[in-house]
């Protein structure tokens, strides 16, 4: 399992035709992600991070350059990539277990049940199998969404600001849960976020993107030992480093203003 899930992004460009001139959403994106890595893509809104993620999952498939998964160029969505959206997108008319079972194909009922049960266990939703989404809290909904995305044992799990709608405390709790799930499943995870601490806490690698056009500004390796200590000195240092990437821009901005 852990030897697949390598993602190679080469010279990816994406432009939308605009009224006066074309909008460059993604420009010259190069990135390689090793199997089993946890990578965060971070940047201000409008930097194209979500667009990049939607290309990796295959919801958008018109682009220049190559996105290769284990050496094969991606073309449209496939079961080898799962995604968790910011709005959990559980189907309100299905119970938790049916939502999770939604994506399973080619399995007998018995196998299906086993897969669903083990994933409900994995995300810690035991006892809520028969609940409808409206009966769940935000955090629980995201757990269910994560389980739903994992049932087909994808090589890569993509997370589009999965915790963005949660309150700060629940979010910290979910960080531990995500880390636990990642360590257990040993799959590649790529998360889009705008929360620096979240990225630092979870990632092996942080990709900082900048806007107009959307480009990769810097790739930072995070080698802090896990589980990480948010209050630790090294953590704070790293955080400073990431924030600096954004500050650089503001300083430029100021120097022009003066």
């Amino acid at each position, binding site marked *: 399992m852990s030897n697949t899930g390598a993602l190679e992004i080469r010279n990816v460009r994406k432009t939308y035709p605009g009224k006066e001139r074309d909008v460059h959403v993604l420009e010259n994106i190069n990135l390689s992600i090793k199997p089993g890595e946890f990578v965060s893509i971070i940047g201000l809104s409008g930097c194209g991070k979500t667009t990049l993620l939607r290309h990796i999952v295959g919801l958008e498939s018109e682009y220049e350059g190559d996105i290769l998964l284990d050496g094969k160029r991606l073309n449209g969505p*496939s079961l080898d990539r799962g995604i968790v959206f910011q709005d959990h997108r559980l*189907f*309100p008319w*299905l119970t938790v277990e049916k939502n999770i079972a939604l994506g399973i194909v080619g399995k007998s009922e018995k196998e299906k049940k086993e897969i669903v049960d083990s994933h409900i266990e994995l995300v810690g939703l035991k006892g809520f199998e028969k609940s409808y*989404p409206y009966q769940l809290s935000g955090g629980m909904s995201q757990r269910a969404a994560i389980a739903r995305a994992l049932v087909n044992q994808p090589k890569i799990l993509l997370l589009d600001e999965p915790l963005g709608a949660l309150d700060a405390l629940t979010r910290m709790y979910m960080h531990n849960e995500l880390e636990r799930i990642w360590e257990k499943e040993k799959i590649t995870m790529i998360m889009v976020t705008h929360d620096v601490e979240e990225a630092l806490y979870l990632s092996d690698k942080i990709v900082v993107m900048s806007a107009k056009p959307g480009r990769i500004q810097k790739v930072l390796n995070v080698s802090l030992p896990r589980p990480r200590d948010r209050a630790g000195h090294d953590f704070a240092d790293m955080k400073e480093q990431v924030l600096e990437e954004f500050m650089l821009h503001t300083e430029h901005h100021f120097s022009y203003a003066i």
Partner: protein
Amino acid sequence: MLSPDKNKISTLFLGLLVPLFLLIAMELVGTSEFLPSQIIVPPHRIFAMLVDLLSTGELLTHLRYSIVRVLGGFAIGSGTGFVLGVLMALFPRIERVLAPLLIALNQVPIFGWVPFLMILFGIEEQFKIVFISLAAFFPMLLNTFEGIHGVPRTYLEVARTFEFNHVKLMRKVLFPAALPSIFTGIKLSLGISWMSVIGAELIASSEGIGYLIVWGRQLFQMDIVYVGIITVGTTGYVMYKGLEALEGSLMKWHRKNS
């Protein structure tokens, strides 16, 4: 614990107050021959007539005619409306071809069709069924179309990431998501069908509740007219409530969701 019950009882009491007052007034005015008793019938005579018509079985016979008609017309009309609504929502070309004609036809108020349909179908059973079908058709068509057309794009994206085929997309996403709207269509459609069956029976019929009312009028027997009106109202109400109950049991997720 006590006060909500008390509240309920007082609400019930207040609600019955006005109808009770009206009934007593009708009784007094009707028996006093202050007004011609053809107009204001004392309620006890209406009740006696109701019992009489029930015991001879006349009322139920007429009611059965009306119900068979409404169910037949409703089934044909709403069934056609549903199928066309689905097709138009799924295939834009079908929508483009059919929409202008259907929109134009929908501008004719339902009773405006009566003479035209009589020319085409005579005044017998065939006319009534076509008339009721036409009445049932449009609300079902519009609500089915809107329901499927309005399925959020976000749900469709989930389906794409799981590579749903057309059948699965229809069964697991489009249909359940459109169900609330479809049910609105069913309720509207049945209500209009019921109104139309009564209308058709008023115009041309020799049996059915609508006919019973007209017959009472021709005999100047207001008590029969009142019994007819009460029966029509009650039956319509029971049908509506039945549909609501069905809706509630089919869509537990929906009511609380919205």
